[in-house]
């Protein structure tokens, strides 16, 4: 039996177990379900709004969903594993993984599985009613939903290694706000998810195009919005080839960089490091 493959499989089962645990945990699901229901409520209130464009008219929901889905993927797969890893470094979970043969390999494969599955409940709560209750959400029909699936997969590949790299390198859980959340929210703000990018300065648009979040949102818009809407985008096109290329490039960069950062993180794990983190955390409680 190959020990690496065994560890990957064991870790995948771990991810599945963690996912099942989080489904049963009111605390975890409370947040996601509340957020998803809030989004759904927002969409419901706007269900009869239409956007007129080029003699065509489509639902406001069609305009809102791409940004929402891109935001959920970006947020869930960067902040999710980022916070989880930073926490596990301090509570001893990672040290346990390090103490067993190929445990870190398994642990990371568990994160890939659990964080990917973690998208399912929120996506389900938002998309199932959106597709079946609201009218004409997806003007492009089946091919549009396939594009959503494809962009989601590319988005996961591009974002998850970033999240793991972040969790591996942030100094402590308490610093996650400054090191993780703040720059990431900034990135989302300039990536044209909730605010049209064209309303921002030209140099900000250039910066945003270096990062995957913009392309993720662009890909989602290309799935939902009518072809003619592409005229509003930078370059007047959906730039599908470029979207795939940039997201894949980020995935490759992530797959090269993240394992190094994870190895560095694993090297620094020790009982005393966990003990020091515990002391630190206890001071915060006081």
């Amino acid at each position, binding site marked *: *039996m190959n*020990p690496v493959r065994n560890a990957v499989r064991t870790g995948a089962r771990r991810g599945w177990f963690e996912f099942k645990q989080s489904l049963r945990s009111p605390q975890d699901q409370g947040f996601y379900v509340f957020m998803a229901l809030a989004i759904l409520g927002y969409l419901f209130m706007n269900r009869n709004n239409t956007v007129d464009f080029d003699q065509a008219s489509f639902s406001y929901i069609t305009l809102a969903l791409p940004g929402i889905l891109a935001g959920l993927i970006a947020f869930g797969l960067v902040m999710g594993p980022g916070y989880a890893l930073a926490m596990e470094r301090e509570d001893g979970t990672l040290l346990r993984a390090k103490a067993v043969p*190929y*445990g870190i390999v398994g642990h990371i494969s568990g994160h890939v599985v659990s964080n990917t599955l973690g998208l399912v409940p929120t996506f389900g709560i938002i998309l199932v009613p959106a597709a079946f209750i609201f009218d004409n959400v997806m003007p492009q029909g089946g091919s549009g939903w396939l594009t959503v699936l494809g962009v989601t997969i590319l988005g996961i590949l591009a974002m998850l290694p970033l999240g793991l790299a972040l969790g591996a390198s942030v100094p402590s859980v308490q610093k996650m706000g400054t090191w993780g959340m703040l720059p990431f929210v900034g990135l989302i703000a300039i990536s044209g998810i909730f605010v049209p990018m064209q309303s921002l300065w030209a140099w900000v648009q250039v910066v945003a195009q270096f990062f995957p979040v913009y392309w993720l949102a662009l890909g989602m818009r290309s799935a939902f919005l009518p072809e003619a809407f592409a005229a509003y985008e930078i370059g007047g096109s959906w730039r599908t080839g470029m979207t795939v290329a940039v997201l894949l490039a980020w995935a490759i960069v992530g797959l090269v960089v993240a394992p190094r950062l994870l190895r560095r993180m694993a090297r620094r794990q*020790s009982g*005393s490091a966990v003990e020091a983190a515990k002391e630190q955390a206890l001071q915060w409680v006081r």
Partner: protein
Amino acid sequence: MSMNHTSETIVEVSDLQMRYGTNDVLTGVSFTVNRGEVVTLLGPNGAGKTTTIEVLEGFRIPSAGSVRVLDEQPATAPEKWRAQVGVVLQSWRDHPRWTPRTLLKHLGEYYVPFTEPGRERPYDTDQLIDMVGLSEQADQKIRTLSGGQRRRLDVAVGIVGRPQLLFLDEPTAGFDPQARRDFHDLIHRLSDLEETTILLTTHDLDEAEKLADRILILAAGRIVADGSADELARRVTREAEVRWTRNEEQFVHSTPDATAYVRDLLAQHHDVAELEVRRATLEDTYIAMVQQFESGYAPDAALALEETTR
């Protein structure tokens, strides 16, 4: 695996040094552990016990010196080395939603490819849970375990892969007397039946005396004593204390030959009562040695100590 259990050295530490900035924690630690031995590392707080054991576990890179554990340098050892080495960690709040059974089963799965003839890996989960006395809590969420139960789980996690060599850092901290007794039985069982070599740190001198074939005392950044509890006691003082009462009066006398002294005493007096002969305990030895090294530390102190007691 070799059957030569008596003389094979599986841990070899030579002139291990550890420095944090300008703070020298370990100044030159040297010792060996042979296959099948149970060795206890004793020392005051801050002496570097945890640092030493973390270097051996491969969790810390030493500043200088050479360390070999099961023929590898721990810091750079391949993953398969991990299958031979068990580590009992001081857990805090990891895996709160798991149960002892799910966690042990999960961690055990990593060891499946490392089964060897005569050493099936991992332990059967039920057997392991039974061994550490967690049967009643096996399906309870880990966050609901008491401190002592959590430590039992830590021990179970440490041995789930049926290691050849087991490291334990203060394994009985927070144990009640019954849990401590159970733990000692478990250590004897691992040592006798599984031929596990064990290195543990403790503050509990009584525990060190009960468990260890050999005791190492770490003070002022190095090993200042290495031997069985008896040998160490003899090194500090050969005198024994004889106490008795006569006519409701108490007497105390120190002598190198307690047996002869008591024989004479009883021959001379017929009204000796409450007779008690007390040799130096490990605690006396330990306090004496640590005080000597921590107060007037000099490089030759170890030699000086041996000479004065001869």
